[in-house]
């Protein structure tokens, strides 16, 4: 099977027109020793009916977990995805279009991006948003690039301890090519070490990265963040906040806390976990950082007749115009996930997004309460505020415990044994809105039984 429409006659006609006798002749510019003289050693073509059967079997080699029994988080989670999202993003006009280089024939996706930018700015309290980074971790990398490209070389950049280990790793990777020095400031009792950060700023650090809620599920104290913002702004440095955007339905926004750049993972807005991708990195900034935005940015303008028109704008930042002077190398991004997020946020809207966030935080509250009472479970950082996640230490091998819970049809959380060096006995428990009180009661019982 291939998707070639050419009949034998078509090919003959075309070859005749070109004055060659075979397609091979068209390849004559390729030196003979570079021509592959055997077929590719990949499986022979298979038909759709067969492959669909085979892949359905493959998919079912992944253990099925019902959404209300899924306590996995640690960056992304399962959420209920309203069926209008696949229906709408699957429309060929969206699905099979590319980057809107031609605005007149791309107003649809351009307007959707513009609406997304607006919604993300509203949630983050920031002035401007791009139309996506690859995911929350690369958005963080993009932020590091933005800083390193524009600040003095080898400035010290502080990274608060609460980062998702994967984010921290990606940051480290992105740092490789940059003249930046990352200084880790470990958390204290699960929260940012404000004092040390303020000291470091005083002694010349030029940027601070903070994640909230942090990897331990703790919502960092906005007053402390604001204090840090003030301090860093006095030295003309920058504050970068990575925030769970769903939590911002309720919590103080990065904008309110004084962030210069706010980034994060927006998979929660209408994308499935998909074994970790495609996800959606959001990247927002204050007005002063406008020209540092990575990737696509959509703006509103007019056509010659005064009709409101959307276009990709500030392209002077971008690789296809500025090449090595570009603010980032982003070309293909996460457009369809942006569309999904725009639909998701419109679906829940102003009230719904708060209601979901309240439900999730309430579930977490309830779960924390119940888990704390299990023998053999030790809640970490018990007196800190949480949004949707919390870490427990268990009196067992967490990998083993989690495996046994899976066998009962539950994903009981994420074992941190190998995922985070600080928590060899840790499990990260995450709540999503499909979970109910009864499900929590059940999982708590299972933990109790197994410990």
């Amino acid at each position, binding site marked *: *099977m*291939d998707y070639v429409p*050419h009949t034998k006659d*078509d090919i003959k006609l075309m070859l005749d*027109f070109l004055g060659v006798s075979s397609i091979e002749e*068209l390849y*004559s*510019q*390729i030196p003979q020793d570079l021509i592959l003289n055997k077929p*590719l050693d990949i499986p*022979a*073509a298979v038909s759709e009916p067969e492959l669909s059967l085979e*892949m359905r079997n493959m*998919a079912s080699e*992944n253990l*099925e977990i019902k959404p209300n029994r899924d306590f996995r988080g640690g960056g992304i989670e399962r959420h209920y995805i309203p069926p*209008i999202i696949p229906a709408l993003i699957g429309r060929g006009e969206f*699905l*099979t*279009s590319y980057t809107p280089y*031609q*605005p*007149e024939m791309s*107003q649809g996706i351009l307007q959707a991006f513009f609406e997304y930018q607006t919604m993300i700015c509203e949630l983050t309290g920031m002035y401007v948003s791009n139309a996506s980074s*690859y995911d929350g971790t690369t958005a963080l990398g993009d932020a590091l690039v933005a800083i390193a490209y524009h600040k003095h070389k080898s400035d010290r950049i502080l990274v608060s301890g609460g980062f998702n280990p994967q984010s921290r*790793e990606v940051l480290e990777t992105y740092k490789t*090519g*940059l003249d930046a020095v990352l200084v880790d400031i470990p958390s204290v009792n699960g929260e940012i070490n404000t004092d040390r950060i303020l000291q470091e700023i005083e002694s010349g650090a030029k940027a601070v990265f903070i994640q909230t809620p942090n990897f331990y599920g703790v919502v960092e104290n906005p*007053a402390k963040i604001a204090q840090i913002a003030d301090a860093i702004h006095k030295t003309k440095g920058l504050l970068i906040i990575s925030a769970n955007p769903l939590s911002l339905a*309720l*919590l103080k926004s990065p904008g*309110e806390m004084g962030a210069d750049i706010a980034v994060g993972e927006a998979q929660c807005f209408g994308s*499935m976990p998909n*074994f*970790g*991708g495609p*996800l959606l990195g959001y990247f927002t900034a204050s007005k002063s950082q406008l020209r540092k935005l990575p990737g696509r940015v959509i703006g*509103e303008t007019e*056509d010659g*007749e005064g009709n409101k028109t959307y*276009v990709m704008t500030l392209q002077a930042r971008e*690789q296809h115009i500025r090449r*090595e002077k570009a603010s980032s*190398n982003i*070309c*293909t991004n996460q*457009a369809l996930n942006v569309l999904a997020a725009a639909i998701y946020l*419109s679906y829940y*809207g*102003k009230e*719904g997004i*708060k209601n979901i966030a*309240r*439900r999730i*935080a*309430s579930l977490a*509250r309830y779960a924390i309460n119940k888990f704390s009472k299990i023998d053999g479970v030790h809640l970490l950082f018990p007196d800190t*505020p949480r949004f949707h996640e919390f870490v427990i230490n268990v009196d067992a091998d967490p990998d083993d415990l989690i*495996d046994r819970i899976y066998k009962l049809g539950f*994903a009981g959380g994420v074992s941190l044994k190998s995922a985070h060096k600080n928590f060899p006995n840790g499990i990260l428990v995450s709540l999503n809105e499909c979970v109910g009180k009864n499900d929590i009661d059940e999982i708590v019982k299972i933990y109790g039984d197994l410990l």
Partner: protein
Amino acid sequence: MRSVQKTIFEISKKGRKSYSLINDETPILNADDLFDKSYLREQDARLPEVSEMDLVRHFTNLSRRNHGIDNGFYPLGSCTMKYNPRFNEAMASLPGFEESHPNSPEWVSQGSLKIIHELEKFMCEIFGMDAFTLQPAAGAHGEFTGLLIIRAFHEYNGDTQRKIILVPDSAHGTNPASAKMAGFELKQVASTPGGLVDLEALKPHLNDNLAGMMLTNPNTLGLFEKDILDMTKLIHEAGGLLYYDGANANALLGISRPGMMGFDIVHANLHKTFSTPHGGGGPGSGPIGVKSHLEKFLPSPRVGIHLDKFTLLDLPDSIGRVKSFHGNFGVLVRAYAYIRLLGPEGLKRTSQIAVLNANYLQEKLKGKYNLDYDTRCMHEFVLSAERQKEECGVIAKDIDKALIDKGIHPPTTYFPLIVHEALMIEPTETESLETLDDFVDAMLDIDKTAHENPDAVLKTPMNTPVGRPDETKAARNPILKFQFE
């Protein structure tokens, strides 16, 4: 024809809703019972409030102001806008894949890991490389990853002074941008009058500072760099590595392999060559393949096999993680399905017909449009509207807009930079002779109109909801979000 569609914020009204929230016995608290007041935001985010009917209408009607391959020809050069099989979509949306969570023990995710493992093998074979990672999210991200590998290689060898990355002057913008991000210094190498890398221009750079060279072959003019073996030899002798920008791989499937040409690192664009949909600009996927001497530098984690089970491995010399989890897995599933459906013959035929289509169009059009590099092309070619500009004052952009009025998506315009008024045309293999002929007619008709009545071309597009936007205004006075009130 012209019409403006209200934004979602303008159709919003306080109190409307689409969602239904679980209403069970779970005790739901108020925000201020959940958090101390100092933790709470002061104003609600002004998200729209709409009914589901209006929501569906809004996005349905927005889609009708957009053009995809499903609507018509889309010869956007270098982007390989081929048919996106709906079969792939069906496979990617199997609940077992969509719902699988990466933060799980390996035994829970064997199906997903298997896809990754097998696709890596296919990629190795197709590109002639020894190992692949599927982690990068797009071509540019792959470039960045590959460049970090080059860097890691030299550092590993103690060659920390190797900081120069070469690119031809016809290179795609992401190449220099990625090189910069990876901390390299960029040097541009001129092309010969034949449109190929000028080996002489290369030579001055062959020294101890050379880190490597990035190249796409066929290059962005659609020409095969026939001296590639000489080039890789020169670079290798100078201690540099060669990076293959795989955006143009649709010309070569089953025909030749970057691995044979001496490339050390390649990226593939699954959303181009392997038919996954472009989604309005993404998501894509930009896997990176390397020769064995570079395998140890690949991003962590890698998927391996242990006791017949798929497992994740960390590499001590890895450049680290470039992205969370395992890349754009949903895109990988689609590419996997595509490769399995086509098999070796199907992939080869794909490239053959892509090249046939391009040559056919080039030959048909070169009479009326300038072809600066007049030779057989591979899967794409670059015309110039220089003649129309001189003779009629109609520039490449005007030709774009005239095409739009005929329901055809324009070529890539003003790229590569070494061709003036460039129109870069890539028909792909999934377009029929009839579609090509229609395109030829359209292009010739536009040329004719340009000569007879240039104003008619300058006024295009007329059949679109909006006319040409004022881009200067957009950039000077950026309005980047809806202005409430």
